[in-house]
């Protein structure tokens, strides 16, 4: 008797499910012929809060543009996996996703593969104002061989975070301007703080073998007048300035001992942030996202943190690596006009302001930085703007992934102390030359 009941209940549920699927199907088919709707697919990933916010953006866009439907193609959180989910459809000339976000470091490869629709025609047709964006970002990162391939949605740059309370406790009234200053301050404060906190470190930064190491490396070498490629695209990795900078990176760990030994094994953004946030470091190199977390209510260092441009070597200038995500259009897209409408909407003042207000992102548009609401919510943004204006992009070349791999490997070996900095950079230079020969 009971089992019969059970069976009936199960049957009932199945019938309902089938019916509901059928009904939903009906509803859709009866609606479409009324207005001719264009559907574009937008691929985006990230933290859950970010994805939620993208849903809000899409809903708003659809209400304003009733003839365009946007399907969100959800990508994973991990950057490398996000890249792979784009490389696969684009390399097989799929027409979707129509629009997607790209890490700034991919643009060279994507543009050279001819996957990105040039936006210049759309810009001139609509008289679209490009001056609202950071000029250097647009010129160095978004243009490939003169063509505009992407627009910055939000940008990032490396910053120095410091403990205001500790600096004044040890008699300093300003953050360090040069790397030498940083070493001196860190050594003194570390020695004093170690008495009560044996886990205390002077300076924490990203040194694990991964993309983040290239960002830190670029900041060190550019602040010593060096670079990865020269203006003609020739590798200059083993220059005297670079060797000096990498020797300094190694010395931070092994000679001055102000950076922990796990710098080259474990330190990615999050371990660096948590070390600093739990009160175990004086200085930290990180992206702007750490600011909001350092000042959250449950943060032990809330209100004690200051930000400054990263230090430079004597005679050099402070440098910040440009990070962030850019929006681009699939060249095989069948709905390019609709896709451009969506890109314009994402880049509009209101949407960009929404990113700053809701997600704490640093907008790609400059005009958002002077908005009173934004300043009230994130006063630090005003200072960040100057850093963003001068941010240094990583080389925009199609073989960047490979180049980055080589740099990661050898700089990591150098700071681990398993290879002498000069040897490491010489080898990196040779390998990069071989890569260029192979892929140029």
């Amino acid at each position: 008797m009971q089992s019969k009941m059970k069976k009936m209940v199960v049957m009932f549920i199945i019938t309902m499910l089938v019916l509901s699927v059928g009904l939903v199907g009906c509803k859709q088919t009866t609606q479409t012929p009324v207005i001719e709707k264009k559907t574009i697919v937008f691929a985006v990933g990230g933290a859950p809060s970010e994805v939620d916010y993208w849903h809000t953006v899409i809903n708003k866009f659809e209400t304003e543009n009733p003839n365009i439907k946007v399907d969100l193609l959800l990508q994973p959180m991990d950057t490398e996996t996000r890249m792979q989910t784009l490389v696969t459809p684009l390399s097989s000339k799929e027409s979707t996703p129509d629009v997607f976000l790209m890490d700034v470091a991919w643009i060279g490869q994507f543009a050279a593969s001819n996957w990105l629709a040039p936006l210049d025609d759309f810009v001139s047709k609509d008289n679209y104002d490009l001056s609202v964006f950071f000029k250097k970002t647009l010129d160095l990162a978004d243009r490939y061989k003169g063509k505009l391939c992407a627009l910055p949605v939000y940008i990032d740059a490396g910053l120095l975070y410091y403990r205001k309370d500790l600096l004044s406790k040890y008699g300093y009234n300003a953050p360090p301007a040069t790397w030498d200053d940083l070493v001196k301050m860190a050594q003194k404060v570390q020695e004093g703080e170690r008495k009560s906190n044996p886990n205390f470190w002077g300076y924490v930064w990203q040194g694990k073998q991964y993309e983040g190491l290239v960002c830190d490396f670029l900041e060190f070498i550019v602040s010593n007048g060096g670079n990865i490629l020269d203006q003609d695209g020739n590798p200059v990795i083993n220059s005297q300035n670079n060797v000096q900078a990498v020797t300094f990176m190694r010395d931070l760990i092994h000679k001055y001992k102000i950076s922990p030994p796990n710098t080259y094994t474990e330190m990615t953004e999050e371990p660096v942030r948590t070390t600093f946030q739990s009160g175990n470091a004086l200085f930290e190199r990180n992206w702007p996202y750490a600011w909001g977390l350092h000042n959250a209510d449950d943060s032990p260092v809330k209100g004690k943190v200051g930000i400054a441009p990263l230090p430079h070597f004597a005679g050099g200038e402070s440098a910040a690596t440009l990070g962030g995500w850019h929006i681009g259009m699939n060249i095989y897209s069948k709905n390019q006009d609709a896709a451009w409408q969506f890109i314009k909407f994402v880049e509009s003042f209101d949407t960009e302001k929404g990113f700053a207000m809701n997600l704490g992102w640093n907008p790609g548009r400059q005009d958002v930085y002077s908005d009173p609401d934004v300043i009230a919510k994130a006063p630090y943004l005003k200072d960040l703007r100057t850093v963003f204006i001068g941010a240094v992009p990583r080389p925009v070349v199609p073989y960047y992934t490979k180049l980055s791999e080589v740099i990661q490997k050898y700089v990591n070996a150098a700071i681990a102390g398993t290879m002498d900095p000069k040897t490491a950079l010489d080898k990196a230079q040779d390998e990069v030359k071989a890569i260029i020969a192979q892929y140029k």
Partner: protein
Amino acid sequence: MREQREFTKKSGNWMEREARLAYFLLAPAIILIGGLILAPVTGTLFRSFYRDVTFLPPVKFIGLLNYKHLLTDVNFLQSIRFTVLFTLVAVFLETVIGLFFALVINEEFKLRGLMRAIVLIPWAIPTIISAKTWFLLYNYNYGLFNFLITKLHLSAKPINWLGTSYSAFFSIVMADVWKTAPFMAILFLAGLQSISKELYEAAEVDGASLTSQFTRITLPLLRPVLTIALIFRTIDSLRIFDLIYVLTGGGPGGATTSVSMYGFKLYILGDFGYGSTVSVVTFILVLLFTLIYLRFGRFGESL
């Protein structure tokens, strides 16, 4: 005579019909295997003869040039060296430890069922999660190992477990053995249980020692299972990716980059031709190992 011929003719027809039906019934499986395995594998093989880089159109046939390049590619050779060494060490340890576990949980004792379940837990945890757990255990500041070492005064300073190529190598091996020795144990247990108890009883009557029971009865009769287990684990180890991706990212200084990771990075770069070449070589490597096992396991005989 005539009758007989008629009969064979009939049976021939019947056989044909039967065969046709058999092929018909097999068709879905053949299509599936062909479409899902054979097509991609041959596709990869073909691609390895081309220069197929997304940002360097057009796709060009270059014969064996990719393979020639591979032979002088220091990064590739380094990754092969690491992968093979890792496989040899890890699979050896997994086999020994797995066999030990299997012998223990094969004996009758109280809570044996519970022990069997517990042994299997590491295998049931997704690698990416156990890798993250091991990453935390190895952590320099907060990791359990460094906590124990400093508490027990074994070393004045905490150890940077993933910091040198040797320690990173053994840290990865340890995490891998922890996860996959249970898998070996369960396979071996199944093998042990199929060995008839009478053999041991007879051996005991003849006065054979425990050691000779193990080497004369257990090991030879376990050989088919041993061969299969070794093939499984070796194939898996040669493709290792997720554990390393989490623990070291291939570092320090590229010392722990596996072949799969190297191939993955080439695909990300958009170099499908060269990436396919790496995949093909990995395939050949796996095939070689498998053939060696089949030969030494005398697999054909024991079946």
